[in-house]
């Protein structure tokens, strides 16, 4: 049966190997059209060539380079205000700007060149500008400082200048004052600069004074000099301390604040800075101080010594700033003009280059027939899409006005040509397909578990997440995403990672939420509160601490259960009772086993469908049947006794009268069945003939193991030997050597046997461990119920019982936070992962024979080429 009767998602599409021939001139447009169609996967016909040897590797490299330039331009645009990227002008093949790739390359290069130059210039200018600003600050502060400092100087030197010679007395007094302060500083353990010091430290005064060589009592005066500059404010105190220590206190430091921040010319960062002035004497100290300045990244500026030149320098400085500002403005406007032009087109360019790069990559996979100037491509495409491919070829040819018609020719599939697996999915099914394929891709035309996953996955999730309230929240969230599908689709990649994941999984989440509401009704939990829809069937009486059924309470002391139990889900009486947890656990464990066995048996049945589809009778008779027997003899029987125990009324009068009638422990029954076959203790009897049936099932399960193990490899070997015998006969008739069998591989019995052995062991051990693994359904559901219970109890009930309205408010908001953060987010994530595992391991390994080593169909599409290298 080659036709897909039940829909394409059940089995992968029929694939055909097709050879395409097209003219060299039509190559570009043809590949473009095929990329637009997105239904062909190109086979690599140049596998023996490295990436560099291929014909179009140079073009690919150039495209790469152009993308680099485009990225540079985009970064430049993003760093500029008021510029946004205009959307791409491509709306399909043949649309969009019609420029040649070479022209674009040249244009991009010149753009990059001019931008780099402009940025370099702008940087140099801004460094100069920042330096000038710092210089201005230094000059202003220095002038201010010198002007305000000298009180004595006013009397001694009314007209300062290099030529002016202040009176000697004043001069010596001044120097002595400075030196005095310096020595005072050297005594002081902490350095405190007193702004109100009344000494004159004007360099004029110094220089004029020091200039007078031979002045009495001023031996070092000729060597006194100073540095001015700027330094980070946070480094001020350590700078001062280091200077003080390095010069043994023989220096004098002053700082002046700059209101506001300055841009550092070196790093281009905004910093808090101060102007400093250091006075010192001696050339040795000078070199020390200069090194310290460098070490502290202090920028030094030369300040003229007299007031007049200071003023001139300041004026110069201001004019220069104005000039620089003008230049900067012009450069910036030119640059943004260029970038504005680029921003209109850059996305179109990107798309164009990426498309062409994809096309060159594809062309590299093709053969070129030099004599006919034809390209030859081998492609996989779905059988149903052949006409579309033919159509695309024709459009491509017409677009490029090529004379030679393009040809499509179906090729026979060689023994090594394994067709890729292709499932046609839609927006609803794709997420389920990807859930399945994260584990492994089905082989070509192997049965696809995704359709089953659509229901079983959300359902198993819900078993672990059963709560009406939480289910409703989840459903609303998913419904919101589904409703605003168009909006989120348009957002595309701009959604956050987390949001994107949720959006991609919106339909799973929706189903998970809906099923959680249902399982919530069964567990009877609404935010951990049981709801009493149908009226509890239990009532507490004065006679006993235990409740009795409302319709069966003639003698309250006998505490008989209700004749008609609560119709949907658990009776609300259980939740608040002491025995509730035991009762729920017993149920959830049994439910896990029942669901698990059902799902695993379904998985084994799928392996039957595979075997039948590939016409492998051996696999049906010697793998599927013994597997079914083994699984059902043990765990099918377990499910049977679970159900039987539920049906048995151990409360009935007859049972109470009979000493042998007690509820058996099901685990012991199952273990005893294998440990002591044929020997059933009286307290484990559940139905007549149980001993015989158990003995029979044990024997069946034991026989099933060698049945799985031996026949298949032996039969395969016998078949192979037979075939070889025939082939030898054939060899005698025809002289041509024909050494391989029709599978194209030699037969290795050892390998086949080991493989079968692994498979058997895996199944037998797996049957036990997988069944146990389903108990995670119970564990997770218990954890969920207990957590929400604790949150409710502690945060809501606890705060309400305190009677304080503020505590109630806080408790409520904490409960909301815990519900959303812990239960809705973390707990749902863990339930999701466990459901995932149950599907990947426990379900899929029952029929994915080779653990899903199929090859996924990866058609060439423009979208995939566009998304490739986005970081």
């Amino acid at each position: 049966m080659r036709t897909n009767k039940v829909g394409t998602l059940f089995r992968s599409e029929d694939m055909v190997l097709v050879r395409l021939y097209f003219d060299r001139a039509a190559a570009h447009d043809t590949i473009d059209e095929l990329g637009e169609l997105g239904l062909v996967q190109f086979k690599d016909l140049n596998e023996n060539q490295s990436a560099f040897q291929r014909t179009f590797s140079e073009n690919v490299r150039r495209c790469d380079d152009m993308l680099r330039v485009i990225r540079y331009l985009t970064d430049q645009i993003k760093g500029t205000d008021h510029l946004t990227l205009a959307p791409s002008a491509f709306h399909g093949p043949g649309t969009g700007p019609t420029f040649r790739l070479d022209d674009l390359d040249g244009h991009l290069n010149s753009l990059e060149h001019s931008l780099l130059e402009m940025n370099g210039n702008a940087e140099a200018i801004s460094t100069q500008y920042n330096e000038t600003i710092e210089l201005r600050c230094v000059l202003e502060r220095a002038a201010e400082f010198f002007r305000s400092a000298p009180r004595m100087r006013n009397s001694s030197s009314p007209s300062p200048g290099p030529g002016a010679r202040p009176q000697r007395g004043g001069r010596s007094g001044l120097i002595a004052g400075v030196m005095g302060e310096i020595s005072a500083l050297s005594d002081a353990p902490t350095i405190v600069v007193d702004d109100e010091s009344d000494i004159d430290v004007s360099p004029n005064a110094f220089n004029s004074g020091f200039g007078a060589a031979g002045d009495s009592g001023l031996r070092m005066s000729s060597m006194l000099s100073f540095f001015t500059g700027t330094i980070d404010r946070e480094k001020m105190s350590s700078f001062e301390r280091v200077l003080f220590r390095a010069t043994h206190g023989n220096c004098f430091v002053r700082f002046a604040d700059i209101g506001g921040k300055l841009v550092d010319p070196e790093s281009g960062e905004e910093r808090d800075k101060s102007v400093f002035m250091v006075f010192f004497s001696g050339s040795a100290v000078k070199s020390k101080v200069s090194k310290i300045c460098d070490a502290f990244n202090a920028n030094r500026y030369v300040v003229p010594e007299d007031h007049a030149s200071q003023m001139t320098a300041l004026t110069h400085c201001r004019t220069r700033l104005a000039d620089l500002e003008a230049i900067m403005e012009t450069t910036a406007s030119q640059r943004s003009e260029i970038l504005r032009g680029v921003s209109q087109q850059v996305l179109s360019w990107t798309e164009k280059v990426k498309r062409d790069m994809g096309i060159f990559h594809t062309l590299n996979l093709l053969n070129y027939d030099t004599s006919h100037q034809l390209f030859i491509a081998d492609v996989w495409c779905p059988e149903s899409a052949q006409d579309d491919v033919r159509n695309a070829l024709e459009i491509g040819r017409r677009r490029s006005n090529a004379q030679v018609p393009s040809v499509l020719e179906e090729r026979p599939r060689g023994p090594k040509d394994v067709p890729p697996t292709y499932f046609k999915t839609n927006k609803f099914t794709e997420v389920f397909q990807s859930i399945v394929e994260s584990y492994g891709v089905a082989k070509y035309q192997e049965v696809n578990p995704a359709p089953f996953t659509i229901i079983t996955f959300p359902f198993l999730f819900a078993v672990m997440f059963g709560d009406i309230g939480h289910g409703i929240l989840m459903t609303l969230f998913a419904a919101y995403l589904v409703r605003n599908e168009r909006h989120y689709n348009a957002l595309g990649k701009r959604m956050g990672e987390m949001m994107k994941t949720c959006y991609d999984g919106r339909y799973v989440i929706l189903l998970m939420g809906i099923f959680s509401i249902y399982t919530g009704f069964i567990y009877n939990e609404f935010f951990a509160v049981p709801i009493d829809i149908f009226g509890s069937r239990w009532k507490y009486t004065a006679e006993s601490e235990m409740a009795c059924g409302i319709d069966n309470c003639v003698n309250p002391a006998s505490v008989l259960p209700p004749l008609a139990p609560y119709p949907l889900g658990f009776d609300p009486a259980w939740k608040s009772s002491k025995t509730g947890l035991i009762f729920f656990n017993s149920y959830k464990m049994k439910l896990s086993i029942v669901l698990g066995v059902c799902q695993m048996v379904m998985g084994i049945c799928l392996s039957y469908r595979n075997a039948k589809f590939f016409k492998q009778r051996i696999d049906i008779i010697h793998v599927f049947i013994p597997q079914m027997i083994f699984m059902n003899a043990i765990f099918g029987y377990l499910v049977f006794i679970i159900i039987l125990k539920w049906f048995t009324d151990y409360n009935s009068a007859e049972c109470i009268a009979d000493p042998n009638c007690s509820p058996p422990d099901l685990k012991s029954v199952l273990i005893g069945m294998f440990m002591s076959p044929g020997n059933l203790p009286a307290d484990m009897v559940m139905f007549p003939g149980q001993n015989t049936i158990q003995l029979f099932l044990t024997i069946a399960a034991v026989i099933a193991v060698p049945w799985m193990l031996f026949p298949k490899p032996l039969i395969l070997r016998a078949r192979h030997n037979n075939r070889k015998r025939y082939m030898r006969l054939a060899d005698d008739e025809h002289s041509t050597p024909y050494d391989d069998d029709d599978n194209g591989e030699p037969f290795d019995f050892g390998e086949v046997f080991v493989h079968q052995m692994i498979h058997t062991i895996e199944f037998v051990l797996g049957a036990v461990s997988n069944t146990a693994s389903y108990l995670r359904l119970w564990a997770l559901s218990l954890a969920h119920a207990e957590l929400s219970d604790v949150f409710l109890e502690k945060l809501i009930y606890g705060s309400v019982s305190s009677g304080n309205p503020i505590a109630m408010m806080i408790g409520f908001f904490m409960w909301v936070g815990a519900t959303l953060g812990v239960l809705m987010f973390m707990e749902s994530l863990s339930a999701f992962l466990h459901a995932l595992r149950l599907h990947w391991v426990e379900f899929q390994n029952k029929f994915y024979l080779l653990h899903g080593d199929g090859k996924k169909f990866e058609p060439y599409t423009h979208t995939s080429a566009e998304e490739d290298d986005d970081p």
Partner: protein
Amino acid sequence: MGALFTGTVIFLVLGLLAYFVVSAIYRNDKDAQGLGQLSVVLATVCMYIMWATCFLHQLHPLVRPIKEGAH
């Protein structure tokens, strides 16, 4: 026991109804129809198992609710 039977019938009826509704909705799309039918069957079976086991578990309970706070 009567309730178990009634419940089973209800699930059966609802399942069949959903089956026919899905088949009718997707009558022009065989792929979607197959998927829909499978989903309805699986969902009905899963939900039925859940309900029926829960009902059976309470039919002949081996423990009784005990008042919280009692010894």
